[in-house]
């Protein structure tokens, strides 16, 4: 099954996961590429996206698996035809065969940009580092079956905090993904709970890279 690596940015970050699947199905159609359909009563085109991305999160490392009918088309051709059929903000970066098994995908690196409407107190990065240096950091997580309490610490593999301007702070976090998955925005939730005076006015989030267990880039 061929795999596409794609980026989602700009106004496309507001497209939901389900809508993105439909968007790709139509893009394939526009590109004149026939997707294989599922069998059964209500056949659906076979496309799947590896890690559903939350609304509002930018990414440079999304994976799309798909299967095409008919004769083989060179990957470079697929890439250019797809990109010519995609709306702004969604861009295929590479198309390749023999992608690794998705269950080997283990780590996700994200960048959180914390925006403050006032200047950030001097020791903020240090205080945030200290917070996540604790043994446990418990945060509530709203799920389908109500709210559960999650400890973030076991899921955070690496964390770097740096101030990038007088009002912006960057958190670069390497976290678990799949069983369980760390939603990087939970770090922000933790700051709100434990360091309420450092709660940002807005947070941007961007997926940077995905890795396997050994921190080898996953493709």
């Amino acid at each position, binding site marked *: 099954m061929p795999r596409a690596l794609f980026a989602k940015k*700009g*106004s*496309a970050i*507001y*497209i*939901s996961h*389900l*809508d993105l699947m*439909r*968007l790709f*199905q*139509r*893009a*394939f*159609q*526009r590109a*004149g590429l*026939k997707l294989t*359909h599922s069998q059964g*009563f*209500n*056949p659906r085109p076979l496309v799947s996206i590896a890690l559903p991305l939350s*609304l*509002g999160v930018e990414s440079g490392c999304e994976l799309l698996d798909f299967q095409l009918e008919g004769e083989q088309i060179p990957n470079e051709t697929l890439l250019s035809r797809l990109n010519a*059929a*995609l*709306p*702004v*903000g969604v861009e295929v970066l590479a198309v390749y065969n023999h992608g690794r098994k998705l269950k080997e995908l283990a780590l996700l690196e994200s960048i959180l940009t914390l*925006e403050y409407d006032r200047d950030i107190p001097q020791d903020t990065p240090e205080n945030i580092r200290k917070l996540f240096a604790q043994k446990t950091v418990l945060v509530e997580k709203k799920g389908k079956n109500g709210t559960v309490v999650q400890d973030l610490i076991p899921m955070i593999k690496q964390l770097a905090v740096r101030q990038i301007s007088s*009002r*912006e702070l960057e958190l670069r976090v390497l976290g678990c993904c799949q069983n369980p998955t760390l939603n990087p925005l939970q770090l922000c939730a933790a700051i709100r709970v434990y360091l309420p005076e450092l709660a940002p*006015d*807005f947070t*941007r989030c961007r997926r940077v890279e995905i890795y396997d267990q050994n921190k080898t880039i996953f493709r």
Partner: protein
Amino acid sequence: MTDLKHRILLTVQKPARYTGGEWGEIKKDLKDVRVRVAFCFPDTYEIGMSNLGMRILYGVMNEMDGVWCERVFAPWGDMEEAMRSHGLPLWALESQDNVRDFDMIAFTIGYEMAYSNILNMLNLSGVPLRSRDRRGLKNMVFAGGVCAFNPEPLAEFVDFFSLGEGEEITVEILSLYDRAKGEGWSKDAFLHEVAKIPGVYVPGFYRHEYNADGTLAAIIPTEGAPEVVRKRIVEDLDQAYFPVKMIVPSTEIVHDRANLEVFRGCIRGCRFCQAGFSCRPVRKKSPEVLYRQAVQLLEDSGNNEITVSSLSTSDYRGLKELTDQLIPYCREHRVNLSVPSLRADNFSRELMEKLQTVRKSGLTFAPEAGTQRLRDVINKNLTEEEILNTCARAFSGGWSNVKLYFMLGLPTETDEDVLGIADLVYKVIKTWSACGTNKKRGLRVHVATAYFVPKPHTPFQWEKQITPQEYLRRCKLLKSHFYSKSIEYDYHSPDLSRLEAVFARGDRRLGAVLETAVKNGARLDGWDEYFNYAKWYDAFRQCGIDENFYTVRGFGEEELLPWDMIDVGVTKEFLLRERHRAYQETVTPDCRSGCAGCGANRLLKEVACDA
């Protein structure tokens, strides 16, 4: 740093509605643009993006050199709240620029319950509501769509109306504006010139006088405005602009598919139906052109569904030729082809069976009335036999879902007619018992009744609307006669239809009510989540206007009607003749069986009516 708008976007439902950036949206370089049009649809993105008229006119305007037309929709309540609390004005999708910075603000209005949204959108844009408070050429507000056939409730707010089909007139209006802006005309000078374009109605040029009893005494044209404004039509639809490149929304909308309009007008003449009369004369598109456009639409949009649309698709003469080509194409490309608005004739039944190879959706009938007598009154020529035969055939083919739509409060309706609905429903159930093959699944009959709203430019434009109490009594009477578990009965709450009736036949005195209701917070009235009759009730009281004057009173045949200065093609004499035939329970055969002389053919110069 993230700007305010983008911070807000993540706090509201379905933010993709507000960002633009979809496949097929049109962006232009501002240095090539002389006229910027904010094309507003007075409802949400999901509704507006499903509207074919808007898609056509978006394309028409953007085809013009120097014009950039962008889309604007009504925000959902959560977004409106966020915008108001942060002082963020309404923006257009393509450029994300504020609506108040646009030269022209256009609205397309398909139903009366959107009126509050028009005012609310102007208010959210920071543009003065009343025409007289917008002094310059900038922010010129104009509107079209079926509601423009009685534009009076909006007369104080909209600078001018464009009547009828917009493919040609919109180009004329925009070209004139382009010149006016270039030459620095005043608003008044522009309105005088635009009023000369056939099909343009400038309400400010007409003075209304009233009798002591509140009825209209005179509509007096001033400033040289024409006494009657005739709607515009496109004569040759094959040559008319059609957008084969469509915007493909990145988020789900109501009608998320390609739309192929096969003809305009209607040969049927159901006496309650506004579209059936006001969209005449009948003009068709050829199957070859339609097939070509369908393929282009599907290839360019990547849609996996296409719908063939018209007011009554079985009446399209080229339907067999078109579907003979389209069905194999759709099958090969895995495109779902839907053909709604089919009549219960033999060809349509065969077609339905061919189309339903994959999914078996339900059958839907709109008998509108429960007895043959009342169906004759309203000229709905669908017989019980046709309904039951179609049901029998469908049930034996495995269908098990039927929807039946009726209206209550039709002229001359008695309790016998109301109970006739129950009778018909039981005959459908009996047919199921006799013919149903999929008995395990069980039958579902969904019955819905609507509250009859008399509409302008129909033979029922003079009719009384029954009172809400009487309507509810008839609903309950009907409900008490439904015993079977297979029946699911829904009736619309009367408040909305009552309000719709007021504005459908309203005059310009209602402008004050509209403004007051919007100030009271009325908006998104088409949505149950937001519709609140109390806000409207208060507005009527505050303005000293009695709803009953427009609803239960009825209009006299001799009375001057607020829309009498508008000619939609069908003559008032014909409508009156049809009204009298209704009371005699006499049907008028469809136009194809013989021309009934409605008068709409007067609009045609190059081709004959294709009834």
